[in-house]
């Protein structure tokens, strides 16, 4: 296609950082191993050479304080992009993120702004076990004062990271470790994607499948196979969970009248449950079947690869849930009880 090229998700992120640093001298990056090594997933590769050590900063493993340093710099006119290696490690920064960054604007009565991006990545990898595989978006989703972005494609990753850096509020930018090497079309020209706008990843008539991050490729695979069964799936990728593009979701639901929500994170207290409750409250009359959620098991992620896979939604799980919401409409009980 003219005007685009195929690049990897991590390359798209790299371009976003590079372009924003070129256009705005207040943007800088800091994190463990991001400068000389170029980041564990190579997202910051080459930035040190171009922008120098003042703006591409290697830090000690001191998550709480490097986040706080970002908050302090943001309060005083900078636009820091702080990288935390794994979302699991963000549990060390919760004071800075939740008590400080998220509340500064509020506590100051609007006088303080924290234009701060926290980049991190979550989800299962390939046997990384319980402390390096979590999907913790619900924590950020739950916290007033944070925006939450979870891109699933290279294009979304670039366009949304640029918007996140330009945003005047703290943004948690949650990447997925299994997406870094995935490829996708990204415009050649300068572009950005507004935070708060979802995307239809596949048009369909029969059922609305809501998913994000690494559940999108799985949802696309499942929908291809379901189309062979005559089921036409519409896939909605909110892309940003906060703010959530409710209009896009409700519009799709009003058309398809059936909903499946897929999240890699554990089921209990998850974002999927909240989206389901929004649909129940705002689109109940459109629904022909109960909303179904396909989610991770309420467990830590085991090391063993087979067990690991069993803890998160599979393509078959997604297909099964889609069939269930559709068949229940016809009064067929496929084990719903």
């Amino acid at each position, binding site marked *: 296609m003219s005007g685009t090229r195929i690049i990897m998700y991590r390359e798209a992120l790299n371009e976003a950082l590079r372009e924003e640093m070129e256009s705005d001298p207040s943007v800088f990056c800091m994190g463990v191993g991001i400068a000389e090594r170029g980041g564990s997933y190579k997202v910051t590769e080459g930035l040190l050479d171009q922008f120098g050590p003042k703006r591409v900063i290697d830090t000690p493993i001191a998550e709480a304080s490097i986040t706080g340093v970002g908050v302090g710099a943001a309060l005083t006119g900078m636009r820091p992009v702080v990288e935390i290696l794994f979302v699991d490690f963000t549990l060390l920064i919760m004071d800075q993120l939740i008590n400080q960054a998220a509340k500064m604007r509020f506590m*100051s*009565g609007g006088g303080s702004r924290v234009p701060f991006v926290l980049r991190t990545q979550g989800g299962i990898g390939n046997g990384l076990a319980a402390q390096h595989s979590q999907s913790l978006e619900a924590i950020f989703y739950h916290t007033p004062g944070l925006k939450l972005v979870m891109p699933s494609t290279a294009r979304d990753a670039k366009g949304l990271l640029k918007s996140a850096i330009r945003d005047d509020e703290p943004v948690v930018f949650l990447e997925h470790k299994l997406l870094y090497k995935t490829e996708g079309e990204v415009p050649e020209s300068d572009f950005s994607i507004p935070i708060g706008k979802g995307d239809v990843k596949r048009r369909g008539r029969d059922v609305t499948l809501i998913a994000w991050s690494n559940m999108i490729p799985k949802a696309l695979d499942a929908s291809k196979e379901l189309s062979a069964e005559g089921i036409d799936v519409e896939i909605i990728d909110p892309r940003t969970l906060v703010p959530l593009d409710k209009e896009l979701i409700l519009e799709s639901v009003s058309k398809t009248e059936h909903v499946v929500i897929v999240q890699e994170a554990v089921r209990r207290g998850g974002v999927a449950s909240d989206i389901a409750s929004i649909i129940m409250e705002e689109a109940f009359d459109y629904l022909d079947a109960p909303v179904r959620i396909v989610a991770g098991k309420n467990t830590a992620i085991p090391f063993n690869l087979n067990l690991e896979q069993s803890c998160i939604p599979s393509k078959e799980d997604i297909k099964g849930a889609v069939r269930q919401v559709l068949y229940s409409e016809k009064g067929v009980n496929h084990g719903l009880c």
Partner: protein
Amino acid sequence: MVSKNQIAEMYRQIYTIREFEARCVKLYRSGDIRGYFHPYTGEEAVAVGVCSALREDDYITSTHRGHGHFIAKGAQLDRMVAELFGKETGYCGGMGGSMHISDISLGNLGANGIVGGGISHGVGAALGASIRGEDRVAVVFCSDGATNNGVFSESLNLAAIWNLPVIIVIENNHYAVSTPIEKMSRSGKLYQRAEGYGVEASNVDGNDVLSVYAKAKSAVELCSCGKGPIVIEADTYRHAGHHVNDPGTYMPTDVLNEYKQRDPVIIAKKYFLERGGTQTEIDAINSEIDSEINSAIDFAITSPEPSLENFLQIVELS
């Protein structure tokens, strides 16, 4: 040599903080001010000595016991009282209160309800200034209690490896809420921790405004020529409990009396008189401040409550 005018200004600020807290505590007891209120009474010379060495565009990060820091950094008393009242005209429009009072335009990044929560913010402000190539320092006020929190060590190390113009002022008032620092630190000399990070540090009599000022001035100069960060431990003592409702019965009377003998107000006044100041001039300063505080309180009382509309606009609920 600090001039008569300079010490007059320091005395004025110390007296202002003393009276501000005294009057606001009364308003707390009468129910006009609510929430948590941690008076700075007894520690005034630390904030005033340090902030007297700063420029207007330097940064500070403050603590839950932060009224003194902000007054010393140039806050208007009327907007401060209004914030303690939760009124719309307060520094934070009534949304922050005592523990979160801030004004970036005056260089105060904020008081903080989390012990140690603001330390890294000061490091970040200094980092930003250094990236921009500006000659500014960031002063981090923190308590003896905060030095036992991991973020103190992390942030000190970050400031050290990046040679940042940060001055960490440990206000050692000897109590973390009610726990004596002597029981929570083996050496009791908190500034010595900095040595392990390769950071220059020393202690000072925190009740003596000129000693504090001299230390702070030298720290600012060192920071300006790239020798930051610097740690200063200021020895001081609260004149009362942790907050207004804490009678502080765990504080030994003899120790409290010793510190009251070395009251920051008395010491500052002595310095003023030594430089040719007179009691009449002191009385004039006091009465001017008293009436300023009266007006500030009237301002707060007559200010409107914040509107729900404005609140919702600020938080932009989504």
